[in-house]
């Protein structure tokens, strides 16, 4: 069972977002943070202090795999790739997220 530590966003959503950004291909920490920021139109600012622990946690759980590579500007950077287990976890987390969002919506609409 993955450990769910509260992120800055909704609990557990940071892991979900990280995994989702990696579906398109591997990326480094900075890239992931930028991508989340861009895609959310600057709504989510992923702080380094939660990003890197989250990356370590996902690595520990075997959902992503780190590898040293070279960045676009020719620097050494650690790239994270989604593993098959990570893909499975992403599907599960997405479903779980949908369920929660739907439930929240229900409450908001009916209460």
């Amino acid at each position, binding site marked *: 069972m993955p450990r769910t530590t509260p992120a800055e966003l909704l609990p557990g959503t940071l892991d979900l977002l990280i995994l989702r950004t990696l579906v398109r291909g591997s990326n480094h920490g*900075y890239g992931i943070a930028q991508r989340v920021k861009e895609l959310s139109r600057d709504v989510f600012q992923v702080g380094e*202090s939660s990003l*890197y622990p989250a990356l*370590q946690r996902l*690595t*520990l759980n075997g959902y992503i795999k*780190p590898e040293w590579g070279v960045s676009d500007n020719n*620097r*050494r950077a650690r790239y994270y790739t989604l593993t098959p287990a990570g893909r499975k976890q992403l599907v599960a987390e997405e479903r779980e997220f949908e369920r929660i969002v739907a439930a929240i919506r229900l409450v908001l609409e009916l209460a």
Partner: protein
Amino acid sequence: MRTLRRLAYWLRLSSHHADLLNEVEFHREMVEQDLITRGMSPAAARIEARRTMGNDTVMREEARGVWLWPSLEALWQDATYTMRDLRRNPTFTIGVALTLALGIGANAAMFSLIDRLLFRPPPFMVDASTVQQVYMYRTSRGKESGTGGQYARYADMARYSTAFSQFAGVSLKRLAVGVGEETRVRRVAIVSAGFFGFFDAPPVLGRYYTPNEDALPDPAPVAVLSHALWTTQFGARRDVLGATLRIDAVEYTIIGVAPEGFVGLWPYRPPVAFVPLATYGRSEGPPDWATTYGHSFGIDPIARRKPNVTIAQASADLTNALRRSYQAQYEGRPAGAPLDELRPRAVAASVLEERGPEPSSALRPARWLAGVTVIVLLIAAANVANLLLARAIRRRREIAVRLALGVSRRRLFGQLVTEGVILALVGGAAGVALAVWGGRVLSATFLPGTEPVSIITDARTLVFSGLVALGVGLVTGMAPMAQLARTSLVADLKSGPREGTHGRSRLRTSLLLLQSALSVVLLVGAGLFVRSLRNVREVRLGFDADPVLLVELEMRDVRLDSAATVALRLRLLEAAKALPGVSHAALRESIPFAGMSSYPIKVDGIDSVRALGEFDFNSVSAEYFAAMGTRILRGRGFETTDRGGTRPVMVVGQSMAKVLWPGKDPIGQCVRVGLDSMPPCRYVVGVAEDIHSESIEPESKLYFYYMPALQWKPQDGGLFVRVRGEASAMAEPLRRGLQREMPGASFVTVNPMGNIVGAKMRSWIVGATLFTAFGVLALVLAAVGLYSVIAYNVTQRKHELGVRLALGAGRFGVVRLVVMESVRFALAGVAIGSVVALAAGKWIGPLLFDQSPRDVVVFGTVTVVLACVAIVASWVPALRAAGLDPKTALQAD
């Protein structure tokens, strides 16, 4: 999977660390670059990037924390912190570790002994809890005593009992093993074939013997070697099978070798070989050895209870079997079965013989000694707690600072406990090393003549020591916490010696009092035992044990008729007298403290002599009284003229004379010794002083008389030889001198009589030695405790003492001030300890010999000793206090 990844991470901890650093650095650069692209100056961008990144140490710690077990991480930090700290204070560390080593070592050694005596099943034994040793009793003259040992009785018990699935007869004997020069007296296990079925110990070579080989009427001369004998004597050769080994009178064929560590039921007295019960019985016993109830081989039955049979049921079944055995024994005899008078009773007891139905002689002192070692451990723990406390108080400010910086009290607590545990474990390890040595001393004291067993390789003892160390560590580690819980942060931060906060710690004072009180208890015990031992040594036994050597004849298969045996004994007597260093030698039949002979006697005018008490005798030759140092009080001893054909004479003991002929002259009285209805008269020619022959304590209703060896069974027994100088040094020359006279494979053994008597004094010797050893140990620990507390107090009072000196107090006054504080502690300890010791007198009293447990001299001496120790312990701190330079002391801090 996670655990595996975690472990992999741990293995490459530093490289992961570097990776994380690089990664974060890359991130920072990217942020910086981003800011520059947005038009910020490089310098401002660098600062801004750093700012947005926030506290990257916290982040790194947190990222790393994902991988670590947080509690483990904390523990590791505490441990390294403690180690660093301990390395910085080597004196403190060594002092504490040594104190604990003494406490834990004593307990480990004691545990090992008690465990082996009481709890550990014999090695290789299958399901030892269902195996019972069988003890048999019968009542005679209203007194119940142990019985059994005959082959016929053992066979009956096996035949008539129904509650057991396995039954075997065992006997451990010291027998002559080997031939010629190689001959040594060694332990041999004489066991029935079924014995091996109790164990799961397949032989490493060959096989064990079968019931057929252990069967009547023609048992086989086969032997199984112990692994130890096989390796030492036979070089572990595989062709040993089929070779022969001479044990006593029989040439045994070796058919197997037992596995290493197989010692039967006797871990402390391992046998060198195992031979069939029937083979041994036939070789040693009379012709009717297998069927008579009149010849004991010392065979003890062991049996395995069937499932669902309780111990009580097993005992009842055995008692029943014993009754049937007695019925069989008395079958056909007139006058009805004596069963009502005999009241036979059998008990299924633990297979561990020390447990027995009654605790053994080694066990009783071992039990209370275990209590003593626990006291030593308490003292050691109190001492360590005290030292840790002193340190904690010294570090008060440091701790207050840490608290102020936000260290949680829980974490601080954890750190203190870690410190205690680490110290205790170090001490425990040193303790085990001490126990290896101490265990050897202990087993030599409690179980003399046995093989010492290693402690260092013994998992049970090691686990025990570890647990004790852990327990002590936890408790002592917590002691400083009790103090810290009360401290006020602000006061401590500001505090310094100058504040004059030399409030004595109540906890420390109590610990110190506990220590001195406990050492008083131990020292009083030591004093009482030392005096007991002195009293024991001063008891006049009626003979001198120390200068006397005991000669015994082992005939093996050499069968001499009576006349030839008498001739041999006389030749030995002459040979002994001819040796330089020998002052007197005499024939004797029995040996005091090793079983005296008894025979029915009749005295004219007394209806039943038996009703007066027990009359034992010894048949001895002319020089006996001189050789033993037994004084003749009236008349004469024996002369060489008292022999077969001359007038039958006897010498009686003083008490015997008094009880048989009160107020009359015993000389010339007639005593009839023998089984017949009217044996001939034997005339009293002398009165000898009384002797002790069973115990050192006063013996009542136990009387002695002597008959000339040449008039009473001149073929039985051996010699007593009195030597000049050290008896043990003369043993070997005497043995060699006598051995020349021995025919064939027969041989003599020579042992100091002091050993036999010494065995009877053992419980007092053990008590005196060990109480003294532990008492001194306790005293040393108490001295260390006093020293540390006084030295600490002096440091705390430096300022105050400086003021005193500056105001003109004399150096001597300061010394007295410090020393008196120490002495007051010690005297308070004496007061408390004395009360405890007086209360404990009730239990210790029965263990002492002719000694009140409330001896004034002992209590007085202990008080003086403790006061002296208090003065010595405070001397150095006192001198340091007196040597203070008032100026420095006042300016310091």
